[in-house]
């Protein structure tokens, strides 16, 4: 096979395109712009670290199931770790959202970075909600019976039945974590491709 034929293959073309868009030094940079040296820039990575703990503790909970996490000391501990990492996840994500909103982080062709972050937030809210109704305790019964009226009022109850524990658990441990992780990955790739949004330019002009 000649070099020209190899270059025409879809694998070659895709590789060239990916490397052109996201060269290794942009994917894993050694330095960051000076303006990133601020506490407001740490909440994105805090959110990702918390997401890692959420996934890890959720995986451990899945190994032994509800009877274990309700009845053993270690189960209680891992269950609490899962809850509190979710709390930190949302806490950091909201501060990250406020920070990025205040600096209009969609500037400079970063609209898809903003959109993937926003959709990740919505998917995470749904993941949190399905987690609350999958606890298999009185709390989850209360939340699901309260939520069903709201969801049924939208017509969504035909497809998303919060009283169906099996469905809620599958959404919580398969579909929504997959969505959250994939969307987070896309979000980070967009940040790497476009770079971290710079601060607003200072201006000395005064409007009349």
């Amino acid at each position: 096979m000649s070099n020209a034929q190899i270059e025409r293959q879809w694998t070659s073309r895709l590789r060239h395109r990916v490397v052109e868009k996201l060269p290794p030094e942009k994917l894993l940079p050694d330095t960051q712009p000076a303006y990133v040296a601020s506490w407001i820039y740490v909440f994105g990575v805090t959110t990702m670290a918390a997401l890692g703990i959420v996934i890890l503790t959720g995986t451990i909970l899945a190994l032994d199931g509800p009877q274990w996490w309700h009845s053993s000391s270690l189960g209680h501990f891992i269950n609490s770790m899962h809850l509190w990492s979710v709390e930190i996840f949302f806490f950091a994500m909201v501060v990250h959202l406020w920070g990025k909103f205040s600096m209009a982080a969609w500037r400079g062709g970063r609209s898809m970075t903003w959109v993937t972050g926003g959709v990740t937030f919505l998917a995470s809210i749904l993941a949190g909600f399905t987690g609350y109704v999958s606890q298999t305790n009185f709390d989850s019964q209360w939340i699901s019976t309260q939520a069903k009226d709201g969801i049924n009022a939208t017509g969504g109850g035909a497809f998303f039945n919060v009283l169906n524990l099996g469905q809620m658990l599958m959404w919580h441990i398969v579909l929504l974590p997959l969505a959250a992780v994939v969307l987070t990955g896309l979000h980070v790739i967009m940040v790497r491709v476009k770079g971290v949004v710079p601060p607003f330019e200072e201006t000395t002009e005064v409007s009349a």
Partner: protein
Amino acid sequence: MAQGWGLGALFNLDHYGHYIQWHVIQISVANLVVIILMVATFIAALFAPFPGRRNRKGSK
């Protein structure tokens, strides 16, 4: 209930939640505390000095 490891909350959480109500707005004290902490963290993140910032040179 199974015996724990002696770890517990710093203060007693074994009671019904407290709520604040103002006209049609109702919020639990726990949620309000979290919101206040988020706002405080956001403001602190904007103004708190970042370690080593003075010595850092713009790399890009």
